[in-house]
């Protein structure tokens, strides 16, 4: 599998870096109330064999980004600009019909709720085989054999017997496994998992994440894991993009971002996450306030209304000037007006002890 692409360790930096490169992606929806800037200038890169986590609250633009990469907004009223380079080809200017050939075969997606994402009237096997046959000229028999093979691979017990079951006859975890089988049947080079474990119970979550990691290793695919669960990111991902209000506010390797986060929003996310490996605090610390309106994005920093640290910046720059996403360490970028030294000091003094 993936025999044409070398393993990431030996891949030349340039080729690998170009595998998926999102540059200044903007997804805006014109509505009667105004222009909704769901994603506003997002950039990130992804190499094969890597897992990128995109985290953020509901409405931060995570899913919209994923659907934009898959071209699911084509044919709607969404306005998309920027570039999505996949293996050297820009997906943004492609037509819906051109994008159709990419969907499922080069990029596949797993969705949050496997029950509603599967058609209730068709069998699991039919739905998976359909995904295979749309991109491969094979007989129904071959597609069925391949479907059973995939179901076995994702760990469905007695796959030949369960292939003709309907979605409602599967358990939640099995449905998500079936969704993964459907997504991987054409051996996509990029897998986007949009909150793949949110609708599942905790014991099944770990199994599904393990499965995604195993299949990543086997196919050497790149994976984008969208989640609001930082625990999932810490456990699974290599890199992480923290999104807020349609923008990336911090990105870097998982080690950097979890060990030395510098953006107050990331601090907030970490503070609101239950941890088993530390002494239990009295309470989790929620981030006060609500995510910003994506129609009237505040001037200055998107996070300014909820940030406790804006008085650490001279004047009122947090409310007047939009901060740039600037590197603070190699491969670690932060969008914040607070000086890097001050950020690190604040983290060590005020945030870290409470995590």
């Amino acid at each position, binding site marked *: 599998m993936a025999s044409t692409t070398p393993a990431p360790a030996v891949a030349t930096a340039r080729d690998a870096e170009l595998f998926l490169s999102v540059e200044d992606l903007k997804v805006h929806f014109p509505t009667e109330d105004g222009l909704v800037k769901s994603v506003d200038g997002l950039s990130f890169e992804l190499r094969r064999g890597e897992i990128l986590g995109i985290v953020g609250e509901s409405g931060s633009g995570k899913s919209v980004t994923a659907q934009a990469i*898959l071209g*699911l907004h084509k044919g709607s009223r969404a306005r998309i600009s920027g570039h999505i380079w996949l293996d050297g080809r820009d997906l943004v200017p492609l037509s*819906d019909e051109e994008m*159709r*050939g*990419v*969907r*499922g*075969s080069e990029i*596949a*997606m797993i*969705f949050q*709720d496997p029950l*509603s*994402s*599967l*058609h*209730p*009237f068709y*069998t699991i096997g039919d*739905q998976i085989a*359909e*995904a295979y046959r*749309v*991109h491969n000229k094979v007989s129904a028999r071959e597609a069925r054999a391949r479907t059973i093979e995939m179901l076995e691979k994702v760990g469905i017990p007695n796959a030949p017997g369960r292939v003709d079951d*309907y979605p*409602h006859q599967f358990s939640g975890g099995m449905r998500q496994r079936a*969704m993964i089988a*459907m997504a991987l049947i054409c051996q996509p080079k990029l897998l986007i998992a949009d909150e793949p474990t949110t609708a599942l119970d905790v014991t099944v979550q770990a199994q599904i994440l393990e499965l995604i990691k195993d299949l990543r290793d086997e196919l050497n695919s790149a994976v984008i894991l969208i989640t609001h669960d930082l625990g999932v990111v810490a456990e699974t991902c290599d890199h992480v993009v923290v999104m807020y209000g349609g923008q990336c506010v911090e990105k870097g390797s998982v080690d950097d971002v979890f060990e030395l986060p510098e953006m107050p929003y990331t601090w907030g996310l970490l503070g609101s996450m239950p941890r088993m490996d530390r002494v239990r605090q009295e309470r989790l610390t929620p981030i006060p306030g609500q995510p910003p309106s994506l129609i009237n994005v505040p001037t200055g920093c998107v996070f300014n209304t909820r940030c406790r640290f804006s008085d650490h910046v001279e004047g009122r720059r947090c409310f007047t000037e939009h901060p740039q996403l600037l590197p603070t360490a190699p491969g670690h970028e932060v969008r914040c007006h607070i000086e890097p030294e001050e950020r690190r000091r604040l983290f060590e003094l005020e945030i870290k002890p409470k995590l």
Partner: protein
Amino acid sequence: MIRFILVRFAGMILVVFIVSVLTFGIFQLAPLLSHTSPVYYYTGKVPYPPGSPQLQALIHRFGFDQPIPVQYWQFLTGIFGKTITDGTSAPVQCPFPCFGYSFRQNDLVSTLIGNAWPVTLSLCIGAAILWLVGGVLVGTFSGLKPGSFVDRAGMTGALAAVSLPIFFTGPVLLLLFVYTLGWLPGTGYVPLTTDPLGWFESMLLPWVSLAFIFAALYARLTRSNMIETMGEDYIRTARAKGLDRRTIVVKHGLRAALTPIVTIFGIDFGTLIGSTVITESVFNLRGLGYLSIQSVRQQDLPVILGVTIVAAVALVIANFIVDVLYAVIDPRVTV
């Protein structure tokens, strides 16, 4: 599945039984309330005054002097065939299904219904095909692009069609296509078996005018179902697989959007069998609707009873088919 069908079948028989009891009850109640003998409603004009021995003899002959349950039992067993005689003319053999004899129209009720039902069935089936195809097509295209020109045009048309009653559209169509343009022959039913083309020409305008209202309802229904379905997660999955638009809309969208319509269609069609009076009157079709309105006007109780039971059986059969079909269409329905 077989168990399910048997249970539904038993339910079906029960409903028909209840309908027959109710109609038979009304049959008994009507003379009681108007303080006359049922024999007047049964035989038409009776020259004997109330209380006369001749009338008593007639009442006795038709069994109206017996207890009502016994009368009902005789009616029920009579359905499987009996001999009817009024004592003066030659006795009439009444084979299954026997709903008695209409002394007003001088014919067996089953013969009257037998002559009428092909007309009504032709009308209903033709109209049903028209409204299903038309309504679903308009509804699908409207629902795929809500707010578009196609949607607005389709829904405006549907609103107009819903607002226009058959006794308006029917005569207008007749005036236009028969009396002005002369494209179609006049009213009246031509049997399919004798002249298929003539049958088609005679039924075309009734089909269109009857289908009009239903097509409008079905277009609106399909539209809202389609809008809802196309927003479902599994449609997004279908797109994410890279399926073409046609497969997404037809195989994934319509399949789900039309399932509830099957139920409604079954009930509508079953109901329609007994309620095509206006269309039949406008186009001079001697169908079940015409027969029932005529017998109501003439107070011809045996015919009313027969038509009611036939209409009830049609509705119950339609429902039964829908139930079975639904279990086939929707795998989540456990049978």
